[in-house]
Structure formats: structure tokens, C-alpha cells
């Protein structure tokens, strides 16, 4: 079940990239490197990249054979999450502006 191709190095790589990304988003916010709206975009992108890095280097989704269904259920969940989060925000935003 634990693929023999997974190396110790992959965890070191995952850890290093994750730390760099965490510090990058932290300093982008605390040092106010960018204008406010750009900062939102920058830390959102950094978070998405870090999630992908952890999914690839720590969870090894899609790299192992026979984990096709794991990948399919993962993609399905992502669609559900998108509907829940984007839908809630869309509805609540419209509700707020229409009630004003």
C-alpha cells in the first residue's frame, strides 16, 4: 500500500517548498509588499500552490497505481466544495446588496 517508489527525499522536498510558501505569504502580508487587492490574490495563489504541493508530495494522489478512484472522488469533492463555497458567497453577497 505504501508505494516502493516513494522516497524519503520527496518528504524533504515537500517540507522545504511548503515552508518557503508559508513564509512568502506571511511576509507578503506583514511587510505589506503589494497593494491590498494584489496581496489577496498573491496569498490565495500561494495557498493553492501549497495545497497542490502537499497533495503531491505528502498524500501522493494520482502517483500510485490503483488509486484511480481516489483521484476521481477527490475531483468530485473539489466540485462539491466549489459549489458550496462559491454558491454561498454568491447568494449571500446578493442578499446583502439587495437588502441595503
Amino acid at each position: 500500500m505504501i508505494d516502493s517508489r516513494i522516497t524519503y527525499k520527496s518528504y524533504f522536498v515537500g517540507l522545504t517548498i511548503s515552508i518557503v510558501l508559508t513564509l512568502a505569504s506571511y511576509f507578503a502580508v506583514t511587510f505589506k509588499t503589494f497593494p491590498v487587492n494584489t496581496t489577496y490574490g498573491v496569498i490565495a495563489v500561494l495557498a493553492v500552490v501549497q495545497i497542490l504541493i502537499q497533495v503531491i508530495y505528502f498524500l501522493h494522489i494520482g502517483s500510485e497505481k490503483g488509486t484511480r478512484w481516489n483521484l476521481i472522488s477527490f475531483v468530485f469533492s473539489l466540485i462539491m466544495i466549489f459549489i458550496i463555497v462559491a454558491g454561498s458567497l454568491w447568494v449571500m453577497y446578493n442578499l446583502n446588496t439587495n437588502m441595503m
Partner: protein
Amino acid sequence: MAHELDNHSHEHHQSENSIFGFWVYIMSDCILFSALFATFIVLKDSTAMGPSLRGLFSMPYVLTETIILLFSSFTFGLALLFARDNKKCMMFKMLGATFLLGLAFIGMEINEFRHLIHEGYSFKTNAALSSFFTLVGTHGLHVSAGLFWMILVMIHLAKGGITTKTTTKLYCLGLFWHFLDVIWVCVFTIVYLMNAI
């Protein structure tokens, strides 16, 4: 011999099945968290005329928490590889390190909550704080459950050795633990960083 081989493949199949079942549970947990995140984003400015969440949290403190949880995810990954390579002693060392890091994380989080409540920012103060405590508290509850489960898995491993059965348990806990770190990346960005801009 043929029977033994058959038995082995049966056990292997069963372990793949339980891992997939556990994976489906984690995906449903993801959806639960996404609902809590949506709630937080909608309510984060609803402070009932009170002070906003901006500047309420100590950022270096939260950064330390983040790095600790990240390291615990890393040490758990190494523990899994040591289990695969049958290095029992190293595996227990890594699991012990993961447990202590997880415990440190939970301790810091409880301390943060206590500090906030002491300052008069409890979950009853306003909708924004209610959603904050629900989201971060649910994550903390998951980590605590993971720590409790880790003790059980370590007992199983100490008693039964590294077998297909015990490794399956360890692997499922690993999926859970890495998943909690992925959720924390979202908490760190959406709850803490976006409120400090």
C-alpha cells in the same frame, strides 16, 4: 502454498478497500470544512458594531503553530516510509515526534482561545467570532482526535509488529494527518492572513 498466496492477496485487497473507504470519509470531511469556511467568509465582518477581527490575532504566534503542524505532517510521512522499510525503532521515534508536535500545536491553540476569551472575545460575542471558533475549533478537535488515534495505532504497532493490518491503520491515520495540515493551510490563509492585510 496456494492457499497462503490466496490469503495474502485477500488481505491485500481488504486493506486497499479500507483505505479507499477511509479516503471517501476524508473527502466528506473536506466538504464539512468547506461549509464552515463559507460560513466564516460570510460572517467575518458581522461583529455587531464591536471591533473587527482585524488585528485580533498575534501573527508570529500563528506562524509558529503553522510551522509546527507542517513539521508534524513531515515526520508522519517519514514514519510511514520507515514502516514500509521495516525500521521499527525509527518509525516509533518519528511517530513520537509527530505526537509531541501535534500536542504542542493543540496546546498553542487552546492557549490562544483562552487568551481571546480572557480579553472578552468569546464565541458568544458576535457572529464573526462564533464562526471563527467553530471553524478553528473543529480543526483543533480533529487534531485532538488524531492524537488519541495515534496512541491507539502505536499500541497496535508495538503489540502486533509491522504487518499488513497494522500498516493499513497507520496509513489511514497518515491520510488523516496530512489532510489536517492541508486544511490548516486554508485556515492560515483565509482566517489569519486575510484578516491581517
